[in-house]
């Protein structure tokens, strides 16, 4: 490093390499992505947003919602589980005895406690998940054994991870395809509030969303979210009350003769929130939808 030019070359090569790796390569690989196909279906993913929801993303951006909310689900693993859906000719008791008789199988030895626990206090309610394991072979062997004695069962792919299991915020991890139509993409980096990847599935009622934006504590007592009253208009009730008036609890209502109605921004923001869904299986993030069990 004796001359300016050698520093220049070193810095140029170093930054150029990372530019190629983390800017150019992802742009080439993902920047021109197209819609993908939902697993075992002809549907495309993701769906275009409605006009209101597209405008709502801009309200989301301008209000800086991403400062406290993420839109990304983490997945730490994947398990397969076998769920009993029909006992056939068997009674719960003799089915239990049959399952215990399988414990001598070498493949099942390490799962005996888990299987025994899954049948604890069971009186034949269906469906009942018998075995969950990251090892597909073990689960499929169990399914085979059940099939052999005429017990009906489903084998399901269940993504694992705190966001999915402990928090119930999603069905599978978020993948690039989910953000295809977001402009700008609002991933967020801090969870001062819950993840919103599936808020449209979890809270599908627009009026609930409005109440929550107007007075967060009126629907979530422990909320630390500031209210967004400036997205709403408080006005005297007309001849006919507005159908969109917020159904507020008495403590939060503005007073007799007054109603709270959403301004266009609040409507758009709620439409955007309701459009947030990541609930279909994709090739890169497979899972078995819950509806398949029934």
């Amino acid at each position, binding site marked *: 490093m004796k001359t300016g030019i050698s520093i220049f070359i070193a810095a140029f090569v170093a930054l150029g390499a990372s530019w190629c790796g983390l800017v150019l*390569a992802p742009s080439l*690989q*993902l920047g021109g992505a197209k819609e993908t196909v939902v*697993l*075992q279906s002809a549907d495309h993913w993701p769906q275009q947003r409605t006009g209101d929801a597209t405008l709502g993303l801009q309200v989301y951006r301008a209000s800086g919602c991403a400062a406290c909310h993420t839109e990304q689900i983490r*997945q*730490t*693993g*994947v398990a*397969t589980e076998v769920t009993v859906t029909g006992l056939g000719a068997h009674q719960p008791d003799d089915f239990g005895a049959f399952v215990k008789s399988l414990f001598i199988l070498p493949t099942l030895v390490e799962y005996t406690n888990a299987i025994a626990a899954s049948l604890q206090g069971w009186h034949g309610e269906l469906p009942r998940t018998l075995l969950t394991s990251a090892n*597909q*072979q073990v689960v*499929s*062997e169990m399914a*085979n054994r059940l*099939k*052999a*004695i005429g017990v009906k069962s489903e084998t399901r*792919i269940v993504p694992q991870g705190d966001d999915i299991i402990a928090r119930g915020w999603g069905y599978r*991890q978020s*993948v*690039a395809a989910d953000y295809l139509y977001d402009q700008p993409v609002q991933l967020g980096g801090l969870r001062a509030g819950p993840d919103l990847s599936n808020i449209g599935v979890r809270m599908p009622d627009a009026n609930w969303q409005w109440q929550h934006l107007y007075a967060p504590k009126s629907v979530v007592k422990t909320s630390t979210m500031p209210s967004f009253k400036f997205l709403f208009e408080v006005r005297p009730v007309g001849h006919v009350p507005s159908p969109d008036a917020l159904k507020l609890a008495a403590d939060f209502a503005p007073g007799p003769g007054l109603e709270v109605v959403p301004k266009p921004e609040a409507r758009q923001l709620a439409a955007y929130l309701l459009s947030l869904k990541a609930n279909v299986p994709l*090739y*890169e*993030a*497979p899972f*078995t939808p819950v509806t398949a069990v029934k």
Partner: protein
Amino acid sequence: MSDENPSCPTPSGGEPTSTRSAAPMWIIVTTLVLLFLGGYYFDQHSGWFNPKVYAPYPNAEALGAYQPMSGDAAALARGKTVYESVCGICHGADGLGKPGQAPALAASELVITKGFNRLAHIPLAGLNGPIKVCGKDWSMAMAAMGAALPDDDLAAVLTYIRGAWGNKAGPVTGDDIKKIRAEIGKAPQVMTGDMMMKLPE
């Protein structure tokens, strides 16, 4: 500069200098060790730039194993699973059989036949030697290992056996198995080799 102009006060010791030395060996070695460990991690977890592979799936193969299959592919995969858990213990995962236990299935004249009536009878009814397979005489007994398997699974296993390891015989369906099972009846009698050879192919 201050030497040239003694009237100027020296600005607190002048400009700093640095002592020259080479980078020591230990830090270079540490870097190389970390580079090796990190490279190993990258190899194991990156999916090698595959755009479909996301953590926690380590590579495309692991991701593929979780794809729900349909039609023939699903039946074949099913057949492989059932074969490996029921038949493979004696006949071997490679289908080459095991001396003193069970004959080969790969290229076996009992497997690659046009029809599969005889073949299906073996797991459904059981077989009590002697038979001749690939030029070797076998005089062993096989219980009716497939009698407890559902029709679809047994069909999947037979399809797998007839299509794997270079075998090129056609598939077997669950309905075929159902028919053969009905012919045999509820209380199958263990066949001898001669009895089997008298059955239609």
